[in-house]
Structure formats: structure tokens, C-alpha cells
């Protein structure tokens, strides 16, 4: 994927947003953050555009992970033969999908997953879902109390990576074109767009500055990265936090960049079954358990070590940036107070 600089920008009046989405929904499946009747905002497949309450200012509870790497996915079916097993691939037709209203954190997460699932080995199951998808991002004007994307370099505004990138300027969106599919959409539906003026671009810059000032947390991710690389994180910090991890897996399941999975075979009857891939988490003891109940990772003292070293050290080595995107979901779900922000803060205290 080649990134082109977002030099080209247009205006889309908010009044026209629904009309534009209606056109897109004719050719694509549409996924956007929708507030449901219980008040929760979730990325949802939209069947009825008029009934859906699209919510762009509140971060959705789920990320886009489930759409590209479902919580559980059937990879193949099998039948038992006298010689062994015959596996039959499962054909899945994934409709071309537009993901609309994606915040910079979640967008960065998809770009990270693209790397994980295509750099060394191409993962056909991920790629068939990712192929033909269009990402329409929206820059974030209202970070939530647990957000810290400013510290992970993945927000609150994004300069590249999406197909179209929207910025809320009050009564209108400034629309920057990123990659070719976005450009094509603008050209196809040019009636909805008007050229942007200097004052719009100034307003965009102003919005960026203001958004940066709205974070309620100062999380020094850089410091934690440096200490992990220098191997100066005190042993007792791992132990303190691991002791309090309650082993629910909520952090990994909600995390937009946790991509660990496990594969299991489920017997349906004596002659057949299916092979499933499902989310897994390195914090589970069973993730590393060996035969005879031996475990190289002692849950009580090191349950969270893999999680944080992977996100803040190993991925920095591999990709030049952490794979934590600062979305804050794990902060709000964590039972024990052992989330990544707590870790970073604890490491920073230790270095005082």
C-alpha cells in the first residue's frame, strides 16, 4: 500500500453527509459507530441508514478488529476418513465494506494489523476481509478521559493512512483525500463536495491545536519505551502489577492491536468437525502452559510482562513505533488496575 500525502482537500457540508453515505451504501456494506438503544456506541453494520444514530464524537466501545479478525472464525471443516482427516476450506464472501467514522487510534490499529498479517506470511483469512475495504477516518476533537493517542503518535489527528480523512469544522467537514480509493469516491460523487479555502485549512489547523489541549492524561509512553529498551524496569513493578491482574483477558480482547489467536478443532459428530480460529491473550496461563502443567511464565509474577514488552519494546524494534495506539479501552475495562497506563506511570515513578 502506497501512502500519498494528503495534499488535496474538499468540503462536505454536514447536511449532505447522510446523502453521501446513502450513495456509498448502494455499492458497499457500511460500518460506522452507532449509538444503540441502550446508549452504547459500537461499530455496527448499518442496514437502515435513517434509523441509525451515527456518533462521531464518542469513541466506540469496540474497535475494527472484529471485522478483520473475528472473535471466532471458521477456517475449514473436516471429515474423518479411514486414512485420517480431509479438510475443506470454507468459502466466505466478504462484501466490499466502507468503514466510516474511524478515529485515528483505530485507524492506526488497522494499519498495524495490515503489517502483522502480511509482512512475513500473508494471512489469507485476514486479507480476504481487509481486501476491498475503504477506511474513512474522522479526526478526533474530543478525546475521552482515558485517551492518550497523543503519547503513542497515533492521534488525535492523522495525516496519512486512510482513504478519506474528515475533520469536523462545526457545520462542515474538511475532507482530505489519502489513498486512491478515497480519491475515486470524491470524483464519483463530486456533487457533494466543494473546494476548500485557506480559511478552512486554517480552521483545520486550529481544531488540531485545540484537540491536543483536551487530553486529561499525560502518559509518558516514550519514557517507558526507553526503559524497556535499556532493560531498567524494576522487577518489582512486573510483580506488583502481575499479582493484581485478574486474568479476565479484557485488555487483549478490547485492544485494537492485540492479534494473538488460537486454533482449535471442534468435533460436530463422529464423522466431521470444524476448525476454528479464536482470539487469545498472552495474559492467560493456558497461553504458555506446557504438558504436565509446567509454565515458563509464572502468572503471579509475570502475567503482564509479555503484553507490555511486546507493545512497547518488540514492536518498536520491528516497526519503529509502539503497537499501543492510546485508545484507552484497556484502561476502562481493567479489573485490577494493571492496564498499560498504570504500567507506564509506575515505570516513570520508578525512574524518579
Amino acid at each position, binding site marked *: 500500500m502506497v501512502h500519498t500525502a494528503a495534499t488535496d482537500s474538499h468540503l462536505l457540508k454536514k447536511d449532505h453527509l447522510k446523502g453521501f453515505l446513502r450513495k456509498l451504501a448502494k455499492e458497499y456494506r457500511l460500518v460506522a459507530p452507532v449509538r444503540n438503544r441502550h446508549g452504547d456506541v459500537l461499530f455496527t453494520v448499518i442496514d437502515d441508514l435513517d434509523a441509525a444514530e451515527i456518533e462521531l464524537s464518542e469513541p466506540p466501545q469496540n474497535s475494527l478488529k472484529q471485522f478483520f479478525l473475528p472473535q471466532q472464525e471458521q477456517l475449514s471443516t473436516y471429515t474423518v476418513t479411514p486414512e485420517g482427516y480431509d479438510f475443506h476450506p470454507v468459502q466466505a464472501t466478504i462484501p466490499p465494506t466502507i468503514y466510516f467514522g474511524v478515529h485515528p487510534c483505530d485507524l492506526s490499529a488497522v494499519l498495524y494489523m495490515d503489517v502483522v498479517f502480511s509482512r512475513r506470511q500473508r494471512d489469507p483469512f485476514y486479507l480476504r476481509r481487509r481486501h476491498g475495504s475503504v477506511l474513512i477516518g474522522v479526526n478526533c476533537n474530543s478525546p475521552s478521559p482515558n485517551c492518550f493517542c497523543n503519547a503513542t503518535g497515533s492521534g488525535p489527528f492523522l495525516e496519512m493512512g486512510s482513504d478519506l480523512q474528515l475533520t469536523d469544522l462545526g457545520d462542515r467537514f474538511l475532507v482530505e483525500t489519502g489513498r486512491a480509493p478515497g480519491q475515486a469516491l470524491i470524483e464519483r460523487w463530486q456533487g457533494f463536495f466543494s473546494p476548500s479555502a485557506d480559511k478552512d485549512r486554517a480552521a483545520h489547523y486550529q481544531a488540531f491545536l485545540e484537540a491536543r489541549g483536551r487530553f486529561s492524561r499525560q502518559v509518558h509512553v516514550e519514557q517507558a519505551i526507553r526503559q524497556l529498551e535499556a532493560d531498567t524496569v524494576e522487577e518489582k513493578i512486573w510483580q506488583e502489577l502481575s*499479582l493484581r491482574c*485478574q*486474568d479476565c483477558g479484557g485488555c487483549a480482547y478490547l485492544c485494537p492491536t492485540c492479534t494473538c489467536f488460537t486454533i482449535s478443532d*471442534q468435533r460436530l459428530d463422529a464423522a466431521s468437525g470444524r476448525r476454528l480460529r*479464536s482470539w487469545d491473550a498472552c495474559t*492467560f496461563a*493456558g497461553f504458555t502452559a506446557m504438558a*504436565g502443567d509446567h509454565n515458563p511464565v509464572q502468572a503471579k509474577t509475570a502475567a503482564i510482562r509479555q503484553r507490555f514488552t511486546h507493545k512497547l519494546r518488540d514492536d518498536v524494534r520491528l516497526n519503529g513505533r509502539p503497537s499501543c495506539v492510546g485508545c484507552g479501552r484497556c484502561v476502562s475495562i481493567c*479489573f*485490577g488496575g494493571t492496564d498499560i497506563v498504570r504500567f507506564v506511570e509506575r515505570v516513570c515513578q520508578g525512574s524518579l
Partner: protein
Amino acid sequence: MTNSINEIENAEVILVSGSNTTEAHPQVARRMLAAVDRGARLIVIDPRRTRLAECAHLHLALRPGTDIPLLNAMMRVLLDEGLADDLFIEMRTENFLALRDMLNRLDLEATAALTGVELSLIRQAAQLYGRARKAVICYCLGVTQHVCGTENVQTIANLAMLAGHIEKEDTGVDPLRGQNNVQGACDMGALPNMLPSYQGVANEDFREKFERAWGASLPEAPGLTLVEMTHGGAQGPIRGMFIMGENPMLSDPTLGKVEETLRGLDFLAVSDIFLTETAQLAQVVFPAACFAEKSGSFTNSERRVQMVRQAVPPPGECRADSEIIMALSGRLGYPMEYETSAEVMEEIALLSPIYGGMYHDRLERGWGLQWPCWDRDHPGTPFLHKYYFTRGRGHFMPASHTPPGELPDPEYPLLLMTGRMYHQYHTGTMTRKSERLSRECDHAVLQINPEDAKTLGLRQGETVRLLSRRGEITLAASITGQVACGMVYTTFHFHEAPINQLTNDAFDTGSRCPEYKVCAVRVEKIVDS
């Protein structure tokens, strides 16, 4: 709970007794840990060194079954050090003198020695608890599953009243209930001596009210308790049973007796979501709908009534419990024709004063309502006993040490405690169907202290034989300092190692709750022949 779960987060001192909170009530433990982060002091009373005990400022590792002496010693310290709340005692309680006299006669050193906890630790715990402005006591089955369970709870109440730590926000006594709706089941009269809303069957006015509403006559004598029913023997007085969502063939003590009783019945019907060990003995099994397949309400530990909404239709022939009861009742000649669970709720509001203002249209908004909620305008009650106790004045019930029904002896030298683990739930009827949970732990383990393991020559993970006077099972040894020398611990989740074949059926004469927490056992190394 006299408090709401969220209030725990604001307490200054949290005293946890007989609760493995991080494993059994993680949502409550999360508030305890949050409170600790805000500076609260955490005191854990538990014979085992649980995770929560490791996170605690004070861990009082008492000998199992010595809760009363331990709490009495704490109360004596409060008295001696002037930490009793005299005004509260004067205004809100009665029978204080009896408690005071009992405490003053106490030999502190000897009492501490009985519990196995250093007196200095008991003193510190009493001081922390007594001096706090806001303090909660959370307790669980480690307190109640003893022959003196009722007295244990009364002694906890004595302590809270002595320190004046009740009837305020963020301050109180909080028993943690183990199931999503066990509070609701009790509230609705699933107790042998109560009609819904704790209206005693012995009371004629209450009976008459329900008789009018139901158009039927009600018995005045209380029914039988669980263990009386499941341990009646093959020729017991009960000839037929209908068991719903309960698996006594794994969960009740002295399983041999349970099996004998159930097999001896003339007729057994079981309603459950899976074919449990109990359902396998039934003549008729009703497939029930699970929580996600029905609508209605659950009442949790903090007395909060919350809506549960059907997410998926029940598979196959499964039906909601209420539909099964209604269909049965109709065939038995008493038609029940409730069209929706909202209609049932209207009857609950009509007949149960503490649920008086709870209707589905109100429950659907927000996070439900906490009882007592007397009428439609009542906002619900986050914490209990403001201004006065339900019975008027709080009655001090002094108690002294009652030893467990069975203690180790030369033949069975180890003390067995039973409990739960994080990844399995109760008899495993649901959790053992999950591959991921089974990967975490799919077999029973016997926690045993390294010294005892050494004496027996055990290796980590070795399969051992565990025997009591009532039976024997085999399971894997887990050598750990979590249990003290002379004690072993395991869980009751696994039918392959049904620990309740070994447990004692001694029970609390008040609550009829069996003593799952203490019995005498022997561990034997299995020698290949």
C-alpha cells in the same frame, strides 16, 4: 449487602473475611483494589494466602473455624482502647452489656492462641478498623459454611455495631452472594420459612394476603431445608422432587447420601440447561432456556434488580423456567397465565413491599433499582439501616467459640477446606463446556503445603489419593505455600474428583448450611503395584 458495591471504593478500611474475592467476586475485588489505590487499608482474614491476602496490608491467617474468637479478640481491643462507638451503641443497639461482660471475661492471649494469629496482628487490625471513619466488612462462604455459621455472622454484626460502622454510606456489612440471582431467589421466598419479601409463613396476616391473591390455601409450617431434603435417605419422607438449575449430585455434602436419597424417590424431575449429574437420575428432564434466551430480572448482591433481555431464541425445545412452571402448574390443575415477565413483576410489586415500586418500565431505564423500593416514586435504597435497623434496635448476640464438627486426628491428620477457583463455576455445568476455560484448568488440584508434601514424598502435579471417613477420590497435588502446614484445599467443580463425597454433613443448626470449610482427611501417595 448493606452497602452498594460501588461504595466499597470509598471506604477507608476494608475488612475481608472468608472471601477469595479476586477469584469468586472479581467485580467486587476490583473496587477493593481501587480503594487500596486511593489509600484504603485492606485487612484479609483467611486461612489461605490468597491473592487478595497478598495485596493486603494485614493478613490474619486464622485456623479454620476460629472466626468467633478472632473477632471477639478484635472487639476486646476496641473496648480496651476506647474505640467503641458509645453514642451509636446507646442510640441504636440493645443487649450491649451481655457482649461487654463476655468480652471482659476473655483471656486475650489464650484467645489469640486459639486462632493461631499473633495478638499484635489482631490488635493492629482492630485499631485500623476501629479508627476508620468509613469501614466495610465483606464476608463470604468462609464465614457461613461452618457449624457456627450463624454465630460467625452475628459476631461480625457485633463488631460492626460496636465500632458504629453501619447505617452510613461507604460503611457497613456486606455478605457477597455467589450467584447472579441468589439474592432474588431468597427475596422471592425460595426459603423454607418465608413467603416473598421475607414475610414469614408462620404469620397469619402474611399468609392470608397471599392466599387471597393466589386463591389457594398455604401451609403454616415451614418446609424443609436443602440438606434435609437431599439427605433424607431412600425411605425419606419426600417421595417426589422437582429440581431446577441445581446440581446437588455434585454440590451437596456427603454425596453418597444424596445419591441414595434421589434414587429412592418415587419420582424426580429436573430442569437444567445441560444434562447434569442430577438430571441423569431423573425420570423427566425439562430443557431450560439460559440467561440469554429469556427476559425478566435478576437481583444481585447489592439488592439491585436489573433487567435481563432475551438476546437469542432458546434452541430446540428449551423453554424459560417460568414457562415450564406455568405449564406444569396448569397440568396439576392450577392454571397460571402470565403473558409476560412484566406481568409477573406486577404481582411481585403487589405482594412484596420491598419490591413495591419496581416495574419493568422503571427497571428498563438505567441500571435498575435497589430494594427496599416502596412505591413508584421511591428511588431505591443504595445502603441499608439509615436511622434505624429493620427490627428497630440492633441486638448484640455475644457468641463464643464452637469447634468444627470434625477436626484432624491421628487417623485423618489434615484439615480439608473446599472452595472455588477463578476459571470454573460451581459444578462446572456451564464453564466446563468452554474450551478456553478448560485450557486454564480442567481438573481438580489439591493444594498442599511444601512441608506436608515433603513428608509424603510428593512431586508437583502427582496424582494422590484423598480420603475421609466418608469416601475417597484421586486428584493432582499442587504444592504451594498458599496453604499452611496441616491444611489442604480443593474445589468442588469437577465430577471426576467429587470432593463432596468426602465433606462432612455436619451443619449449622440455625441456617442448616453444611460445614464445607472443615473436615478431616488423609493424603496417600499412590504407589504403583
